[in-house]
């Protein structure tokens, strides 16, 4: 039976390891941090993803968590999959990959296949080849909040190879084959850029949608009415990223934009478009702040604002470049009430923030409410209850979580993206 190893038990490695066990493979999950391994072994997972805990418990007999790199010697294929930290400007810290890759090379059997799964800039994988070792780069397409589903049902595998004309090693082929999707071998550099290309197209869709939603707000059109017509266009498609949002966040897309900018600087390629994407993202991220100033903050002397949702999107604990955090930072002079179903209070960068025990608790007595993360539980909020709990009537609801008719009946003044 093919045994798969995963090195680096942060988001990518943990989700990938647990998903591999669900496919029936024996899996060794390694991380040099013994405390992290002990926590995971004790079922205290460091990340929140739908089905992750359930599958980890279900497949426990096939999953082995270890802080001893030597245990990877049992594996036929070893993925090196630490999360790559990014800074506020999209720069990557590749140090953790370097260290983990070196540890894996030292521990792996000579016939084992080593696969780099973390996202790296073009040129990185080729520079890490080692004599007598078989190294591949595989594109990860982790999406926060849908990571397990995407690991179990990938659309395709993009595999970067030293020589794409040579067949993949049998054990690696067997693992990929268990997922019944196309496998696309290509040279390292193409695969590394393919990952960036995918993200750039997503950014282009998001930026276009946000730009047009902004135009809608000025001219009395409604972006929600336009979106279905775009989805029916085959050139755009049913699954295109067309919903208006608050710019780019989460860190991964920003990193890829940063990589393209860096490649442009180094090689003289045109990247003006990337600059425009970044500028557009900055502009849209501050949309809730502008709305609050245009409504409550210019009229009320000592307002209290409720911010529901801190994560940069639903079903994740991540607040990386979160619009909610950006908004909270700009509300310094005023008291705020905060609630998020997953993110803890210590993530709130505000001296006068108090954390509600529920969404409804957080909105009691506030002058305005900003629904900053489209968590499912916020969609269930009843407008009548909100109106009774709040002192003011202004609701910033970028993602249209509330029912517009019910909100109007309750006397709430709702402001949403893409609508005048």
């Amino acid at each position, binding site marked *: 039976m093919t045994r798969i190893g995963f090195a680096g038990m942060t988001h990518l490695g943990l989700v990938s390891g647990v998903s591999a066990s669900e496919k029936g493979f024996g899996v060794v999950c390694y991380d040099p941090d013994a405390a992290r391994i002990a926590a995971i072994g004790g079922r205290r997972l460091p990340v929140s993803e739908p089905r992750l805990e359930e599958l980890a418990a279900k497949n426990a007999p096939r999953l082995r968590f270890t802080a001893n790199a030597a245990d990877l010697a049992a594996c036929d294929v070893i993925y090196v999959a630490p999360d790559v930290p990014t800074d506020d400007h999209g720069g990557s810290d590749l140090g953790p990959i370097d260290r983990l890759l070196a540890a894996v090379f030292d521990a792996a059997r000579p016939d084992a296949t080593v696969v780099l799964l973390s996202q790296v800039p073009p040129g990185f994988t080729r520079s890490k080849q080692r004599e007598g070792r078989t190294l591949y780069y595989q594109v990860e397409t982790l999406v926060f909040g849908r990571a397990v589903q995407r690991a179990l049902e990938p659309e395709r595998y993009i595999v970067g190879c030293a020589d794409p004309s040579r067949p993949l090693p049998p054990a690696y082929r067997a693992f990929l084959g268990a997922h019944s999707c196309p496998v696309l071998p290509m040279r390292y550099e193409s695969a590394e850029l393919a990952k960036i290309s995918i993200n750039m197209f997503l950014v282009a869709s998001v930026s276009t949608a946000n730009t047009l939603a902004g135009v809608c707000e000025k001219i009395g059109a409604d972006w929600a009415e336009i979106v279905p017509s775009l989805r029916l266009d085959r050139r755009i498609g049913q699954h295109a990223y067309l919903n208006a949002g608050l710019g780019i966040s989460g860190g991964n897309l920003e990193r890829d934009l940063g990589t393209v900018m860096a490649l442009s600087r180094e090689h003289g390629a045109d990247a003006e478009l990337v600059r425009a994407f970044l500028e557009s993202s*900055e*502009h849209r991220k501050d949309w809730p*702040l*502008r709305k609050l100033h245009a409504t409550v903050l210019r009229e009320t002397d000592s307002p209290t604002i409720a911010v529901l949702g801190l994560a940069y999107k639903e079903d994740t604990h991540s607040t990386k470049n979160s619009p909610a955090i950006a908004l909270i930072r*700009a509300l310094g002079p*005023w008291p705020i009430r905060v609630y998020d179903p997953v993110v803890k209070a210590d993530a709130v960068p505000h001296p006068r923030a108090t954390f509600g025990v529920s969404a409804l608790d957080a909105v009691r007595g506030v002058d305005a409410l900003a629904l900053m993360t489209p968590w499912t539980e916020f969609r269930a909020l009843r407008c009548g209850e909100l109106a009774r709990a709040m002192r003011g009537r202004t609701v910033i609801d970028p993602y249209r979580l509330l029912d517009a008719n019910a909100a109007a009946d309750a006397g709430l003044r709702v402001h949403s993206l893409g609508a005048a």
Partner: protein
Amino acid sequence: MLQHLYDKPQPPSRAVVVGAGGFVGSSIVRQLRAAGVEVAPLSRKEVDLLAQGAARRLGSLLQSDDAVVFVSAIAPAKTPAELIANLRMAEVASEAFAAVPPAHLLYISSDAVYADEANPVTERSPLAPSTLHGVMHAAREAIFRGTCKGPLAFLRPTLIYGADDPHSGYGPNRFRRQAAKGEPISIFGEGEEKRDHVVVEDVARLAVRILMHRSSGALNAVTGVATSFHDIALLVARQFAPRARVASVARPGPRPHLLHRFFDITECHKAFPDFRFETLVQGIARVHAEATGAATISRPA
């Protein structure tokens, strides 16, 4: 964007305003004094920046812990000679600041430093001036950026109006003067160009805040609301009884390609969250009352 050295406002030991005799400079002096800051106003009387030995003279008037507001300019700079003279004034100031480095320097620049087609304009918009006036301010910013080693801020106002404005540029000030003389308020074409107008007191209040926080970086002094000249003319006309007439006149040349200019004032919201601009409606009414000696209309705090 602006970075504050002091999160909580803290007055400078003394504020020197170079160009204190002008429309904007005198307003800054008044607002600084109202905020309890010791002010040393310098006008051309105290130091003529184009005179021989001006750098030495200016340096002799500075103290090492001064916050300096540099607002002196021959404005608008329309000719090459005016451009050169303005740059010479900045050069002189730089020499003085090199001899006695200010604890904080605030340069009052202009939104003319931005490209005409930038819309909406933010502090991140590229500096690409299309006029000599814009080139002058962009070059002066570069001069001070190159020579000032301490905290340095640029405040970039858009079209300014106010009771004491000596200029009669197209906009609220000219419209009020035309109406006061019993003439019709004349707008070019239909006056459809939308622009942002900021009252001089708000520019001065922002300057005071920047000094109080010892901020670095750039901030646009703009309200974020663009209003057509047609609507501005009507607002001014309503201040008079009987209401002044608004007349369309032929444009003196082809309509400028810069038809509208909008600003995104998010950076101002972030730098000074509780700052509120006086609206054009309030500002035009208050300025009219002040100019005509009517009872003072109090402005928002």
